[in-house]
């Protein structure tokens, strides 16, 4: 009974997680996802290069036109390639990148625990 408040807490958290996003935060989140084409390793959010400003205006316009984040990203990828996104999309080319660490981790842990059990 001591910990009965835990599930109540968890439920409250989950409910509150679904707070609505405003358009401005949506725009900024997108800016942080898009790479500045001329600078090294910066997002358009951090950059004030001309091309970055153009992209920001473009994204704002698209949000106003009612496009979803997915549609906007899809448009950018089509125009500039996957390179434009700060986070690589999950697809055939990036399966190893995304899944290898977790698979290697799991295999290793299974080996460790199985060996120990066998010897115990």
């Amino acid at each position, binding site marked *: 009974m001591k910990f009965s408040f*835990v599930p109540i*807490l*968890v439920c409250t*958290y*989950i409910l*509150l*997680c679904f707070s609505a996003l405003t358009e401005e935060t949506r725009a900024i989140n997108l800016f942080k*996802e898009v*790479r500045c084409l001329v600078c*090294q*390793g*910066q*997002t358009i959010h*951090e950059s*004030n290069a001309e091309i970055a400003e153009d992209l920001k205006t473009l994204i704002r316009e698209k949000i106003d036109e009612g496009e979803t984040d997915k549609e906007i990203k899809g448009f950018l990828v089509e125009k500039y*390639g*996957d*390179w*434009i*996104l*700060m*986070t*690589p999309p999950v697809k055939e*080319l*990036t399966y*190893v*990148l*995304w899944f*290898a*660490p*977790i698979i*290697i*981790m799991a295999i*290793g*842990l299974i080996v*460790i*625990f199985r060996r*120990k*059990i066998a*010897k*115990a």
Partner: protein
Amino acid sequence: MSLALHYIANLLLILCLVTSMIQSRFLFNIQNYNLFSISQISAIQFLSILVSFFILIFLFITSDFNFDLVYFHSHSEKPLIYKLSGVWGNHEGSMLLWILILVLFNFLFSLSKSRSQKFKEITVAVQSLMIFGFVLFLLLLSNPFNINNENFNDGLGLNPILQDPLLAIHPPILYIGYVGFSLIFSLSITGLLTSEVDKKWATIAKPWVFAAWSFLTAGIALGSYWAYYELGWGGYWFWDPVENASLMPWLSATALIHCVVVLQRRNTMQSWTMVLAILTFSLSLAGTFLVRSGVLNSVHTFASDPGRGLFILIFLFIILSSSFLLFALKSEKINKPSLHNISSRNTGIMVNNWLLISILIVVFLGTMYPLATDLLYNQSLTVGPQYYAISITPIIILFLFFMILSPQLSWRESKLLKILNEMRYILISCLTITFLTTLYFDLFNFTEILIIFLSLILIISSLSLGLNFKSTKVIVKSNFGQSIAHAGFGIFMLAVVSNAVYSQEKIYDAKVGSKLQLDEYIFDFKNIEQEEKDNFNSIRAYLSLSKNGKDLGEFSPEIRFYSDPPTITSETSIIHQFFSDVYVVMNVPQNQESISLRLHIKPFMNILWLGVIMIILGGIITAILNRKKYEENAIN
């Protein structure tokens, strides 16, 4: 004068080459040379490099432009400290520094007590073979003492972004860390050759490996702090390829230090310790290679030269292939059968070892994948911070869990329920604290809450393990180093998560006289001035910061225009408060009317650095405390 110094320095390097050859004779069973003892020859090796290093420093201080290196990387008008840091702000000089540390470790080891004369001889021989390789490389391919026949009036200068006091000490500290692992590598090769990888081996290796690890940690932390205030991107870690190149050996070294402890206590995990020792040194070498090669796009490619990278690659290949061949031949002999229960500290450490390696794989893939897809499929990818955050978070959660659990377990066998029972007060109090803080700060993301909860338990349980609270006094236990480092990691994780959640930033096009606002802070833009300094011109903005009508201090962010070589840098201005840093960066002005200013609120930065300092302290304490035991054991 210049010519004389040129010859003296080269002769000294050749002297080191010859003595290193003499030292490596033990590997080839040549024993009939006994004119000098090992430590005497090591002293000659060390002194020859030390003197040539001082000659190079002298050349930079006196601005002797007859030497190519000084001409290309220094300037007579530069302040003294940057003339000094110019010595290692370039490829040749930093190689000499690298070798200096290599011979220093060799010298120190030859003075220390060891398990047997033979063990010491072989270790010094392996180390000297590496010294030979690097000095040969220095002499043939990147000689810092090359002279030219022109009469240059002035040098070309040092990259202004490197003109920073922190960056003067960052490379030496980082190098001590990197190169420290060369000695661990030599010790491992010796252990494999003599089939003596056991408790005694671990006792000898432990202070060295902890010292090297502490320096590596400090080096990375200094680099990170430099990036935080110098680059002005508002972060402390960018997952930049060169940062990753230093993080990879760190991860492997962190696994290694725990293995050495297990080996010392339980005489098990021999093979894995050897693999980690070889891996750590190889990654350290690769780290040097990556910084120097310019293969990777990075903010660090200021000292790039692909040709020389080839040497390090060949060297790396020789080291990897020969040491793994040796390992394959000998691993049967060094392994002792290990018998322990599933719920023992061994298992916990092994699991976390593997989790560290998993993080290493994430970092490796993130760094190399764009290169691979570019080369193989001609497709460019960007792997940004988000990839690392997503991939590492689940591993870190498991890692924290086992980091809390393992020290509670005994080396033999423990009942999990009993531990849970013993920790109930800590668990309940941490749950309450987490609950209250999340409510107070409106934090509703489950992952973040979980990490905060685990970090809190880690901090409290680690501290309570290292300190014994008696009614009147506090007793510091022998595992205090471990306790403080683990608590430091908890504090670090706590700060990382809260910093990620609560950082705020805003960009303003501001005019003089306007008031800018971010959160509860008011920035009063007062003035803008142009100044002329010794080696640059600057535009400086003045702002004052206040919160709820209380004055908190002045900002003076700056844009600097250097003339030799022509470069523009942006100097950030930070007001440190206990709970958060407020941070202003000025962008290069595009027009006359307004100036673009970027304002950041970075909460918990002080606490983050505190965590890092505790981690480093923990390593140093363990290295020193172990010393006494080590001396006793080595004699027996």
